[in-house]
């Protein structure tokens, strides 16, 4: 007897993959699945976002805080196309995500039916894998593959498009076998034992070695292996924005951030080290500046899971392929215990210069308009490095990532590679749902906040206790900074006449407050942290502050400017 519909099979697949929450928005072509979600609501909790883009970012936030696969679901046509920004974001930032879209009935494919769009064609360049299901019998196998592909190797987004007739179609029974391999897919490349020895030799004889780590450490759950690695070798280590929080801020070998708005020492000394060890990072242009003058004097070791990243931007003298959790562990026995006191002291000297010229003035500001950094300081003082920071894109993102203190991993969630404004608000409530016991603080600029402002509705309805800090300078601050520095202050379309954010939050029944004065700031931050439910704090900050240090695009990392 045929008794199980394709739609029910979809839900059963999700249950088999331990999916207990998904983010989405219903519509015509996905209604059979939603009907089953209604029946299975005690097992799979659906969170209704206010726009499909919000569903993808929430799924990303969920994945990044929980380490699990995030799931987003939408209907065909506009529902599906609205997912694309989040999918592209997940692809470039290696976030495990499965997106499910409804599709018009298979008999109508290609007929320009109502809400038909070729989402497979559209999503192909921005997915790790995608597939269109037209028969209910395919569902089990394809879902098993999708979850395996999304989370294995270098993670990424997968999209499954299901025609409406496949959702209605009845099948006899439901069987589910978890996917453990695909013959054409090498999730983790083999490690050449020679590469470990060669890397160890370079590390042992280096006088001025320097580590730059990225998100690979977090995605590989390799934090403790990485810390053992740096502690045994005594090598100073700096992070890319996505690697942030893998090592506690206060760790003596954590020397700060590299890249366009990274710390002074790590950037300058990139061009002074004799060995650069890249761990789970991909030499993005925002990290390297001009490649022609990036660490040319140094030997390069690249620990990497994705062979396509090796020698893509920077040629490695030794490439160590594999999951860093394994390779960092395996190399340990070849490494000499070492310390690099004098070399590390150099980072300290550069820090002192940066402290005098930038950090002290921003972080410990005493007069004039509020700085973004002192808002972060107040958050640090009230959370002791225990909260999850979710940031949007722009000046506030750079400042928050530079100054927030972290004690534990998976605590920094931001849109790095794609630079998606509007990411933070939905990602923050996804993160809160992914790790409900932790405080989640979203720091967002006034521009990006308005790109997904409607998700206040999802926060209110889902009761996710997200703390939202809007750093409001009434400008698209980063673009304005570039206009000031590189376009003779022609502020084309960057000034914003903003609405009353507090009133808007209150309209969604979210507690909200606005603060403008330095002496009130800490009390208001404290109040926000202590509040049980979601809370929005709008902070009016100095209108035309710039983020420094800065490597102007196309310049060398050692030409980092402090003012």
């Amino acid at each position, binding site marked *: 007897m045929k008794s199980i519909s394709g739609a029910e099979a979809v839900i059963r697949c999700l249950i088999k993959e331990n999916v207990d929450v998904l983010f989405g928005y219903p519509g015509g072509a996905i209604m059979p699945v939603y009907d089953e979600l209604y029946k299975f609501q005690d097992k799979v909790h659906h969170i209704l976002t206010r726009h499909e883009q919000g569903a993808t970012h929430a799924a990303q936030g969920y994945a990044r805080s929980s380490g699990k696969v995030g799931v987003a679901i939408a209907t065909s046509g506009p529902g599906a196309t609205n997912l694309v920004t989040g999918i592209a974001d997940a692809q470039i930032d290696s976030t495990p995500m499965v997106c499910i879209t409804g599709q018009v009935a298979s008999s109508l494919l290609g007929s320009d039916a109502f809400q038909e769009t070729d989402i*497979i*064609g559209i999503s*192909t*360049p921005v997915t*790790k*894998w*995608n*597939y*269109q299901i037209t028969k209910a019998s395919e569902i089990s196998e394809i879902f098993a593959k999708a979850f395996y*592909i999304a989370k294995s190797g270098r993670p990424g987004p997968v999209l499954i498009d299901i025609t409406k007739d496949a959702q209605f179609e009845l099948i006899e029974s439901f069987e589910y076998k978890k996917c*453990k*391999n*695909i*013959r*054409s*897919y*090498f*999730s983790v490349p*083999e490690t050449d034992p020679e590469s470990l020895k060669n890397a160890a030799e370079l590390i042992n004889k280096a006088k001025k070695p320097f580590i730059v780590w990225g998100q690979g450490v977090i995605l590989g759950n390799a934090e403790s292996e990485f810390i053992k690695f740096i502690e045994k070798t005594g090598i100073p280590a700096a992070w890319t924005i996505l690697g942030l929080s893998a090592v506690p801020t206060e760790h003596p070998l954590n020397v700060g951030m590299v890249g366009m708005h990274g710390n002074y020492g790590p950037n300058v000394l990139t061009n002074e080290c004799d060995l650069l060890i890249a761990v789970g990072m991909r030499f993005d242009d925002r990290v390297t500046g001009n490649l022609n003058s990036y660490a040319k004097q140094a030997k390069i070791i690249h620990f990497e899971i*994705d*062979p*396509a990243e090796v*020698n*893509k931007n920077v040629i490695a003298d030794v490439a160590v392929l594999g999951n860093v959790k394994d390779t960092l562990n395996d190399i340990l026995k070849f490494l000499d215990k070492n310390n690099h006191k004098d070399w590390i002291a150099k980072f300290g000297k550069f820090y002192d210069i940066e402290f005098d010229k930038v950090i002290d003035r921003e972080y410990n500001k005493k007069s004039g308009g509020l700085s973004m950094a002192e808002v972060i300081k107040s958050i640090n003082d009230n959370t002791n490095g225990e909260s999850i920071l979710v940031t949007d894109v722009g000046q506030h993102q750079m400042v928050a990532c530079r100054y927030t203190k972290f004690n534990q991993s998976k605590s920094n969630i931001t849109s790095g590679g794609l630079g998606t404004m509007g990411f933070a608000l939905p990602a923050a409530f996804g993160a809160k749902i992914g790790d409900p016991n932790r405080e989640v603080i979203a720091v967002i600029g006034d521009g990006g906040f308005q790109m997904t402002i409607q998700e206040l509705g999802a926060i209110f309805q889902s009761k996710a206790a997200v703390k939202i800090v809007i750093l409001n300078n009434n400008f698209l601050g980063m673009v304005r900074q570039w206009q000031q520095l590189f376009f003779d202050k022609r502020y084309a379309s960057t000034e914003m006449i903003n609405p009353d954010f507090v009133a808007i939050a209150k309209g969604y029944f979210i507690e909200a407050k606005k603060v403008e004065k330095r002496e009130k700031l800490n009390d208001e931050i404290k109040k926000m942290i202590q509040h049980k439910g979601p809370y929005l704090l709008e902070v009016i900050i100095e209108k035309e502050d710039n983020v420094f240090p800065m490597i102007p695009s196309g310049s060398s990392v050692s030409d980092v400017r402090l003012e």
Partner: protein
Amino acid sequence: MNKTKFTISIYTENNVGLLNRISAIFLKRHINIRSITSSESEISNIYRFIIVVKVDNEKIVKLVKQIEKQIEVIAAFYHTDEETIFLETALYKVKSKSLFNERQIQNIIKDSRANIVTVKPEYFVIEKTGWREETEDLYNKLKKYGLLQFVRSGRISVSKKSMEITKFLKSNKNV
């Protein structure tokens, strides 16, 4: 930088949309595909794309890695012309009148070692398989007698050295 002509051989599963996924890799990098063919390979159920591009030596390595990274691509290889044996096939449709009126045409066909595929009262079709220079040469020679239609296939090629695709499949320890 100096650009070289490369033949990329891609072994894949046979799935809808894979052509799109592979061609997107070229599109993203603004690289023009000079020719593309796809067919079954020596292994049952495994398909093979042959793509010809002209790029610099550094780019070809990156391109092939990106192709190989796709889930349903089993392996991808690249070769220079010297490392492969390659051919293209061209078809030429000419008015039958010319075959009988222009004696020269028969000599051209004979000299170029082309074959006559079919002869109809109105037209005849010539087939020539060989290198690009040869099919082009024949094209130029026949053109003056009036070509009704001309078409040339993409390159097909086999590598001189073995690509050991079966070994590749077996080496996947996940299987």
